[in-house]
């Protein structure tokens, strides 16, 4: 036993020593070191942390502070598999908490337990997996399940075990070098496409094509944006309009291909006339759920979805292979940057940005040119540039998509900005929750170094710079510039008072330009097409486009890029296709936890910085969650508050305690225990938290409360009077069965709490005392006979 422990200790010590040798001994290496330790052990063993303190400049106090601040780090061993239940906004409004509870029930976990008895699963809530269009979403290890229903949880666990034991053999690569290629099939491989099964579709295609010697490129493109129709196959052949095949399920593809490619005769034919045949086959044998559209059909959901959008940050969307630099260059990539370093002075460049009217897309909307000018004017030996990809808003995945799909565009934007301000070092700050983005940027950076777009004397000029990646460790507050800098410096991500602004004194006290990913992605286009081309899009004060993650109760969700000033109505009705399931449009939540809810009556509002702020909302980073009549606005406010409260760094009083107290008041109200006086205290506290917090997180955290109090006060009052008009707040609702019940017993069989006695062929009843309001009965009832009031 002792020996065993000793061996274990030695193994920890050896591993830690290796990690230290790789990451360095300076105190700012602390986060990368911790990430590496966790990568090895799945958690942070105390002995490992102590070893780090012994052999580096990192102190006990520092390592304790850091490892408990960032939510990525775990201090206890976890189960073999990790179940991540996404509780992002889109998932929340589609019942994520009920899904979470269902997992806990299925795994027999008590109140605070997170790991099952056998140590097989550990369950955790995660802020946002960025798959909002297929909400609710659950990720078990690397397998993502979308559109999860509460009652399907046991099935999902079974499926996971099956999938785990059935690991696919290695996948045949694409046939890019084959001379007989007659076209290409594009498969979107953004995170959400993958979550919807596109990787499997792609694997099946490649395998089948290879086995049958069909020469065609299967191209992995970045996010297509049409997240509502994925997995999406695009067939491109010479001289013909592309054809889309939407919503293909992997097993359907498998079935189709297996059925039709088995015979040799068919394969021979395929060799010559693949496309026509392939197409016909797919159409003939298309399972009912699969939709086929030609791109020139204007009235298809895809065309409608794309109509009204302008692609700047997402230029060439669905066409580029993310890490293919040649292709990026062919489409004009890096031309803007080359033009800048060869033709423009720093001031000329900043002037272009000024005239373009570009404002920061991270939420605040600060004019980019002013920031650039400040950094350029600052006198210092060393200046830095940081790409802020710490997108933590639940319900937002724009940055992730841009980094995954257009790594070179973001790099180019960053190079241009670096040149404009005279930065000598650049950092990509990317959430560790976005592994694909990290991987793609890493690949792209390596290629850029090879091709001398990074490094010394770039492209034969005097300009030299290098970029590296810093992986955020899970703290929403690090989206705030000063907190982000603190975190790179190896500290707890606490914001500090400005001034001084990072532009004057930022990373390592050097002048630092921090721009959001989307902002940087817009820059190459602006330089290439001119300031005027950009400022003619959008409105006078909000120029250009904005990328939004459209999700929630809309028919067609996805990633959209629209001109500033597009109205809420246009986005929801024209692009989104209106509200799903014949429900009534109630409100749209814009800007995530910093934003607000805008009621349906104001849907003519143009989406731009000024208009949104006037209504008490905010552009935020671009989450756009559509809410229908079944969504409770008090619950929405409570949802966002519980997020910000959880993400508060805990430094200043108003944010640390104020958000907690506001949440408690909302909880009291949604339990039906609120009194009128509570609203008064809530409103006052919301105002003082807005005024009294240090950073943007605290200053905007009350927005969801204030905007819902403003537009939906009657819902708060209804709760105080004991009812939840939308039937959401579990403490205020009851489930019952109507006369439509046919006595099929499904509900009784599925009820996890035995609240419905089995009563074949007769009307069933729900015993309210036993009902845990998990919603399973309503979901499974074939007659829609379960009533929630």
């Amino acid at each position: 036993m002792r020996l065993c422990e000793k061996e274990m200790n030695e193994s920890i010590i050896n591993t830690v020593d290796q990690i230290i040798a790789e990451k360095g001994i300076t105190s700012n290496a602390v986060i990368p070191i911790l990430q590496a330790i966790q990568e090895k052990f799945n958690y942070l063993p105390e002995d490992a942390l102590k070893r780090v303190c012994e052999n580096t400049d990192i102190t006990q106090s520092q390592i304790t502070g850091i490892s408990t601040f960032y939510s990525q780090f775990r201090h206890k061993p976890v189960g073999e598999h990790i179940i991540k239940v996404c509780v992002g906004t889109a998932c929340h409004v589609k019942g994520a908490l009920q899904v979470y509870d269902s997992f806990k029930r299925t795994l027999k976990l008590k109140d605070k337990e997170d790991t099952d008895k056998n140590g097989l699963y550990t369950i955790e809530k995660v802020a946002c997996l960025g798959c909002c269009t297929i909400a609710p979403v659950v990720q078990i290890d690397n397998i993502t399940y979308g559109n999860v229903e509460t009652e399907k949880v046991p099935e999902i666990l079974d499926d996971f075990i099956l999938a785990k034991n059935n690991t696919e053999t290695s996948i045949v690569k694409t046939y890019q070098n084959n001379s007989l290629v007659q076209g290409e099939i594009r498969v979107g491989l953004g995170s959400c496409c993958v979550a919807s099964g596109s990787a499997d579709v792609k694997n099946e295609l490649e395998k089948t094509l290879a086995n049958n010697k069909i020469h065609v490129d299967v191209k992995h493109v970045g996010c297509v944006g049409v997240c509502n129709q994925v997995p999406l196959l695009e067939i491109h052949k010479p001289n013909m309009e592309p054809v889309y095949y939407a919503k293909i399920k992997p097993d359907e593809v498998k079935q189709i291909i297996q059925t039709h490619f088995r015979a040799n005769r068919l394969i021979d034919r395929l060799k010559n006339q693949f496309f026509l045949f392939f197409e016909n086959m797919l159409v003939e044998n298309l399972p009912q759920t699969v939709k086929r559209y030609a791109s020139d059909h204007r009235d298809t959901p895809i065309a409608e979805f794309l109509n009204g959008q302008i692609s700047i940050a997402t230029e060439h969307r669905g066409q580029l292979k993310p890490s293919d630099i040649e292709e990026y260059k062919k489409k004009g990539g890096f031309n803007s940057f080359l033009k800048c370093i060869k033709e423009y002075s720093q001031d000329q460049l900043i002037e272009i940005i000024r005239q373009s009217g570009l404002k920061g897309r991270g939420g605040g909307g600060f004019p980019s040119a002013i920031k650039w000018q400040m950094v350029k004017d600052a006198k210092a030996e060393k200046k830095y540039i940081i790409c802020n990809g710490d997108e933590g808003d639940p319900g937002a995945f724009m940055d992730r998509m841009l980094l995954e799909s257009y790594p070179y565009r973001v790099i180019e934007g960053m190079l241009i900005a670096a040149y404009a301000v005279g930065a000598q070092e650049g950092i990509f700050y990317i959430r560790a929750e976005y592994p694909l983005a990290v991987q793609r940027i890493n690949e792209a950076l390596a290629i850029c170094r090879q091709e001398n777009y990074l490094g010394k004397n770039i492209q034969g000029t005097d300009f030299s710079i290098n970029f590296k990646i810093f992986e955020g460790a899970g703290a929403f507050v690090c989206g705030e510039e000063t907190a982000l800098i603190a975190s790179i410096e190896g500290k707890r991500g606490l914001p500090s008072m400005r001034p001084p602004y990072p532009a004057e004194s930022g990373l390592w006290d050097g002048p630092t330009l921090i721009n959001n990913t989307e902002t940087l992605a817009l820059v190459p286009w602006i330089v290439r097409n001119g300031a005027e081309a950009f400022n003619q899009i959008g409105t006078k004060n909000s120029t250009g486009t904005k990328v939004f993650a459209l999700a929630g109760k809309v028919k067609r969700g996805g990633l959209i890029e629209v001109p500033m000033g597009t109205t809420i109505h246009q986005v929801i009705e024209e692009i989104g296709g209106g509200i799903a399931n014949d429900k009534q449009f109630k409100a749209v939540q814009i800007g995530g936890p910093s934003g607000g809810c805008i009621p349906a009556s104001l849907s003519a509002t143009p989406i731009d910085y000024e208009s949104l702020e006037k209504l008490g909302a905010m552009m935020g980073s671009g989450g756009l969650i559509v809410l229908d009549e079944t969504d409770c606005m008090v619950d929405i406010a409570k949802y966002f508050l519980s997020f910000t409260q959880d993400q508060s760094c805990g430094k200043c009083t108003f944010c640390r305690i104020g958000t907690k107290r506001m949440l408690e008041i909302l909880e009291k109200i949604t339990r039906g225990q609120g009194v009128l006086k509570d609203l008064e205290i809530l409103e006052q506290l919301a105002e003082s938290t807005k005024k009294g917090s240090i950073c943007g997180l605290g200053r905007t955290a009350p927005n969801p409360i204030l905007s819902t109090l403003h537009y939906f006060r009657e819902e708060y009052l209804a709760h105080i009077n004991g009812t939840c008009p939308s039937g959401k707040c579990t403490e205020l609702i009851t489930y019952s069965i109507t006369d439509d019940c046919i006595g099929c017993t499904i509900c009784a069989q599925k009820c996890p709490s035995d609240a419905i006695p089995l009563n074949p062929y007769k009307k069933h009843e729900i015993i309210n005392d036993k009902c845990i309001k998990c919603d399973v009965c309503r979901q499974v009832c074939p007659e829609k006979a379960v009533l929630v009031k």
Partner: protein
Amino acid sequence: MFLSETQCNRLYTNEIAIKRMIKLKINNIETQVENGTSVLKAAEQAGFKIPSMCFKEGYSNHPSCMVCMVKDNKNGKLFPSCAIAATEGMDIITDDDEVKQSRKEALELLLSDHVGDCEAPCQPSCPANMNIPLMNRLIAEGKFAESLKVVKEAIALPLILGYICPAPCEKACRRGQIDSPVSICILKKYVAVEDLKNETFYLPEKQKKSNKKVAIIGSGPGGLSAAFYLLKLGHDCVIFDKNEKAGGTLRYEILENQLPNEAIDKEVEVLIKYGAKFQFNTNITKEIFENEIRKNFDAIILATGNYEGSVIENFGFESGKSGININKDTYETSIPGIFACGNIIRSRRMAINSVAQGKIAAESAHAFLNGQTPEAKHRMFNSKFAKLLEEEFEEYLKESIPENRVELENGKMGDFSMEEAMLEAKRCLHCDCRKIDNCKLRIFSDEYSADRKKFDFGERKIIKKYDQHELVIYESEKCIRCNLCVDITMKNSELTGLSSIGRGFTVEINIPFNQLLSAALTKTAIDCVESCPTGALAFKK
């Protein structure tokens, strides 16, 4: 300096900037400060005091407490004055309603997350507000004389009350939740008994003689108490009583087997030694009152007992349902210079109430005699929480002993031995805060009249006490997370030090890897305790 390191570096690299003077307006008054001065210091230099808790000279602190909020008059925005440097042309407001409201709300939020007592619960539940925990600690150390001094600050007749007081303090005693309350009442009697064994018993030093004379009518608990404190304040007093001996209801209504007359005699003897004059067998008629007492005395204290049916009824004082009308804060009657205490105000109160009122009436009379208007005694802000949770018993017992209450055979008629008294006193849990007099949270909460219950919506946190250190005790739930101690241990290169653990509302300051407090604070203990704005970090003694 208040500045962040970055700010400092910037300034030190620019010497010209350092010497420059900055002009700004604070509360509409033009002022000049050296470049680099924080708004907090600039305001202080201009004579405007701003409350602040998390700021310490020499530390580059992120502002956290938000109590030093001021307003930028140009844009109406609030900001923490400790963290922003004064700049040319600033226009700052430090004291308008919005600023004050914001500070008050910050304090109220901090209070909602501050689990601790300022005064131990026993003290405010004692009508005389005696400092019971201090008395207990002195007894536990065998310092009986000192302990009696503490008692006599609040209670003039500890021996008498030791027999008859129903001890509301013991009902509030937190130890009662664990097993049984500390036997406070008998402990108090013990120190009185010990004192009276001496030939020269304790007589507090008197203030300078005022040459003023006060008449006290009635020698019950209220009258005797008033006399004691008036004498202490330097006045002469004469106590009139209709009976032949002093004590009033104490002597004539309470049975000998509850309160021996000998005890009354002893404490009357103390008063006589102290200088009180008694005039017994004197019925104060209205005529005597008007013609002699009011003429010959500078102030009068009425302590005649029950109002109903007494001669006072036709003296012409304003009266209500239960007795004579008085100012509830100062015990002044409707006639200036005449005060009242005890049952004459409201009958059938505990003797301890009369004793407590006697002291207040004496103090009001003192103010009156000095030509001042008697004022309500200010009761400082008091943080408190409801019951202990079961898991907290152990934490509280860390500062106590597990022994059961010492029960005497004959109850209140009995006396402790010295060993018993010391043992019983050691059972006290030290609920009172060690920084009761210099806790900034208490001082500012008092100044801003903060309501500690305003944000009382959720469950409170669980109290922990870390006492494994020679000098220091750390009570984590009194901490306001200002992080000063963390910065101090870091700056002084403590090997272990203290650390912020966790994030957001659940963040707490604690010791890395669950080590002992003695490992965390080796060379910085004194600095940390002195810098801690609350009672979270305190010296054990």
